[in-house]
């Protein structure tokens, strides 16, 4: 079974991103870039499925400029077998990304596409669901457990009220939540080996995808800032403030 894992190059989760001073974009000059944490979890899960003998090949794909080779190599150091770079603008929207992935699915015929549930830059949480619609397959989003058995994917999902388990016919789309696994660190020999693994590049034209923007970013602004408040000396002082100043308890 082939597993396709789309990974996104994003600003590292430790960086606090701010709007540019002219309020038209976000300032990410010189920011540390990483694999989106949810995508890293997807890579780990796919590699584990390969180690268990369930998967035969793990292909990672990233859509963006050539800088994403860095993340593709990192994913191969974690155990992916080969990589595909789809050369495009870095701000392609989830619908266009999903269309690229659908075109790739038609070429590669994977049985599972394992994505992150959300990219931590745009916080969209859309691409997996969109791909599942375009491909007309089932979707197991926000997965905290994945089992492949009897030719189906059994996916436990993190939902607002607790957990839900679904059985998906294959092929299927699965998106990862944080608790699915804890990704490994790449070892040096694997990093060296990853440099020699195949990395192919495709263009949007080759895939027949129109990358036009449907939702334009017109303005960026910082969120309403909270004033840091005061420190209180003890519990009595806290209760007094909550009752008489903030009036949030009776």
């Amino acid at each position, binding site marked *: 079974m082939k597993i396709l894992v789309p990974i996104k190059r994003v*600003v590292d*989760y430790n960086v*606090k*991103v*701010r*709007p540019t001073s002219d309020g038209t974009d*976000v300032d990410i000059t010189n920011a540390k870039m990483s694999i989106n944490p949810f995508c890293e979890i997807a890579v780990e899960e796919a590699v584990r499925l390969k180690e268990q003998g369930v998967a035969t090949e793990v292909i990672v794909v990233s859509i963006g400029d050539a800088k994403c080779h860095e993340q593709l190599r990192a994913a191969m150091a974690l155990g992916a077998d080969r990589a595909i770079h789809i050369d495009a603008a870095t701000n392609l929207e989830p*619908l266009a990304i999903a269309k690229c992935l659908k075109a790739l699915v038609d070429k590669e015929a994977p049985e599972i596409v394992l994505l992150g*549930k*959300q990219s931590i*830059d745009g*916080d*969209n949480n859309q691409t*997996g*669901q*969109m*791909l*599942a*619609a*375009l491909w*007309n*397959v089932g*979707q*197991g989003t*926000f997965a*905290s457990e994945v089992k492949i058995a009897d030719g189906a994917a*059994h996916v436990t999902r993190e*939902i*607002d*009220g*607790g*957990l*839900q*388990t*679904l059985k*998906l*016919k294959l092929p*299927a789309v699965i998106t990862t*939540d944080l*608790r699915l696994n804890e990704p490994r660190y790449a070892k040096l020999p694997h990093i060296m080996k990853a440099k020699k693994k195949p990395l192919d590049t495709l263009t949007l034209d080759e895939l027949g995808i129109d990358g036009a923007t*449907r*939702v*334009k970013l*017109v*303005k*960026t*602004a*910082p*969120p309403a800032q*909270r004033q*840091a*408040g005061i*420190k*209180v000396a*003890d*519990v009595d002082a*806290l209760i007094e403030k*909550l009752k008489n100043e*903030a009036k*949030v308890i009776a």
Partner: protein
Amino acid sequence: MKTLVIAEHDNQQLKPATLNTLAAAAKLNQPIDILVAGANCGAVVSQAQAASGVTEVLVADSDYLTHQLPEDIAPIIQANIGDYTHVLAPATTTGKNLLPRVAALLDVQAISDIQNVLDANTFERPIYAGNVIATVESSDSIKVMTVRTTSFDPVAATGGSASTRTLEAGSASGLAEFVSEELAQSDRPELTAANIVISGGRGLGNGENFELLYTLADKLNGAVGASRAAVDAGFVPNDMQVGQTGKIVAPDLYIAVGISGAIQHLAGMKESKIIVAINKDEDAPIFQVADYGLVADLFDVIPELTSKL
């Protein structure tokens, strides 16, 4: 030009998040219909009819919709899109699961988590864990959007008298099958709707110690939340996680206990009216957003606070 809101419900009860979503829809100033898709969900249909500002309730009531799988519901919305220009659902795990699938079927770019409606095409939404608020303008003919419920006060649950229209039933997609569900049972108010939320972090040390917070919460009629670290460590179940990738809350009072205040946690609670932080590290970043900070050992002050209230 009409707006369609997707009702969130469990076949018995219309979830309050739907009322916040109706409030966002009202800002579009055009007639609002609501879709109730489920099985034996007559009670929900009545509640949707009574909700303020609804013109018509579209009803898809059929056994195969018991678990409301997006593989089954997205095609119903697509088939009935008619002259709806906006399709809205709450940004809950249910809405986030469904709406992108709908958008892709309609070939439009969805917009996640809107927190303000500027005009029919222009919306505000948080990006980068809420560190940036983006104003975005859609050129698609249909806007498919999830709504950040904490940003819109709910419309009244009663007073409306919408008509109903039964939709033609489809059949199960066969792509996905419901197996089981483990829903957390609690007598406390729901996290996203509570006026008071008390959240615990890694500082609690283990699951048993969360009892301290439950006791305090019961005294205040509050809900209990948690940081991701507390959930990951297995202290409490996942449905209690507050933050960028958990639930968004905005109560009148949020008490963060043994939580350091990582940006991903702040993303889920910094719209709260009053924030209290209890942490033994006086440099913990949580104090930068707290109205009242108490530098102390939680194991001393939580029992004291509980007994003095």
